[in-house]
């Protein structure tokens, strides 16, 4: 990358050397709460909070953290797509993020929306983007500092980079061509079987039919998280996705859920924690597939992991 460092800014912050993280395929994609506490405020680092609840950040956040909201900032509701390179660059400038900034993202609900934001950052090729293991819950439960003070980041000069949808994103036609190959449905068992059209306790809306894409394995996304919200260990995750489900790191895998947010979490696990080489997230997910004329579906418990 051809970026001139200014004011002695490091190009990238050091990797977290925590032994648990060291077992993952790409430990540079995660940081622990203690690593973050130690590096908070250093130049070259921007912490981003991304939550399901759009107001949670306002109630208190990690000092210096900026907020990125999927609904209002990463999503283009008119085209049902992500923002384009120009809008993403504008957003990054407003948040004080440069192209070579180390971005650490954390959020509520086991980092579910944080992983989604990380996936979108990856569509734009932002190189150094990491998740805080355990997310907001881990930070808060350790009694670490929170503040309601809003940072006022200095605008950066982020380039307009064209989004690359070819590597980590799958569209409906890609899924049709992939039928028979490994597919992971990360929704709840009730959504997978077709009994529910949305998560329990969430609106029963979005799709005309209930069920799953033929041949998909059911692995609810939250199985990758331990009780404390942190990711399960490498051994546990290998046993789940490799052992129980029978996936292999050299296969092309497509993951999906209802709109692609929960499956971003599983995409992160397979890609960065287990080192799978080709995982795509089908963000059209069930709201598109379940409503599509002639798209084949299966009902029932199917090939459950």
């Amino acid at each position, binding site marked *: 990358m051809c970026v001139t460092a200014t004011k002695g800014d490091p190009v990238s912050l050091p990797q977290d050397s925590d032994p648990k993280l060291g077992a993952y395929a790409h430990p540079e994609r995660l940081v622990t709460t203690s690593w973050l506490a130690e590096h908070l405020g250093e130049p070259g680092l921007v912490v981003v909070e991304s939550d*399901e*609840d*759009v*107001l*949670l950040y*306002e*109630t208190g956040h990690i000092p210096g953290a900026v907020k990125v*909201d999927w*609904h*209002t900032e990463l999503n283009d*509701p008119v085209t049902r797509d992500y923002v384009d390179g120009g809008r993403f660059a504008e957003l990054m400038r407003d948040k004080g993020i440069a192209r070579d900034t180390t971005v650490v993202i954390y959020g*509520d609900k086991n980092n579910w929306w944080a992983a989604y934001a990380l996936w979108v950052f990856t569509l734009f090729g932002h190189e150094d983007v990491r998740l805080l293991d355990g997310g907001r819950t881990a930070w808060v439960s350790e009694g670490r500092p929170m503040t309601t003070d809003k940072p006022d980041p200095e605008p950066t000069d982020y380039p307009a980079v064209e989004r690359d949808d070819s590597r980590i994103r799958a569209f409906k036609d890609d899924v049709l061509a992939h039928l028979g190959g490994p597919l992971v449905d990360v929704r709840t068992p009730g959504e997978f079987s077709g009994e529910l059209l949305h998560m329990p*306790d*969430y*609106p*029963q809306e979005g799709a005309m039919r209930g069920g799953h894409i033929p041949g998909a394995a059911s692995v609810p996304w939250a199985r990758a998280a331990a009780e404390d919200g942190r990711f399960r260990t490498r051994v546990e995750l290998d046993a789940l996705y490799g052992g129980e489900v029978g996936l292999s790191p050299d296969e092309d895998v497509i993951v999906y859920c209802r709109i692609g947010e929960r499956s971003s979490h599983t995409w992160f696990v397979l890609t960065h924690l287990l080192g799978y080489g080709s995982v795509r997230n089908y963000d059209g997910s069930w709201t598109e597939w379940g409503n599509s004329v002639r798209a084949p579906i299966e009902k029932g418990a199917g090939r459950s992991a």
Partner: protein
Amino acid sequence: MSLPAPFAEIVEEFAAVTPRQRLELLLDYSSDLPALPERYVGSRDALEQVHECQSPLFLAVEVDGDGAAGGGPAVHLFFDAPAEAPTTRGFAGILHAGLDGLPPAEVLALPDEAPLALGLGEAVSPLRLRGMQAMLARIKRQVRERCS
């Protein structure tokens, strides 16, 4: 849209500020939501869950026989939502501030799309606002049941 006076005041309050400030205002309503009265604590069966909200929200509606000064019946609203769901709490806070104490007829006359008048679509997203419309629909249904 004809709105009862307290709800219309809230709409004006939101209209007077920028979309970003609307979020702050919503947070104020979230903080101001009254706690669930003792008699409802621990009795989820007496409350109705609003499944359309992103986070668990429970509500109860009471219509007391002879209300305040005027002496007619008045609607009272009670909500239970966790602190980690400030948006959902904010929606509940607005409905409480805008409707609690009104005569049933005024609550029932509130248009179903009244939450859209708050101009929160841009700040919160239309998808999230559906939770508030669902709360209102359930409140109105319960008022109707209590008054039939």
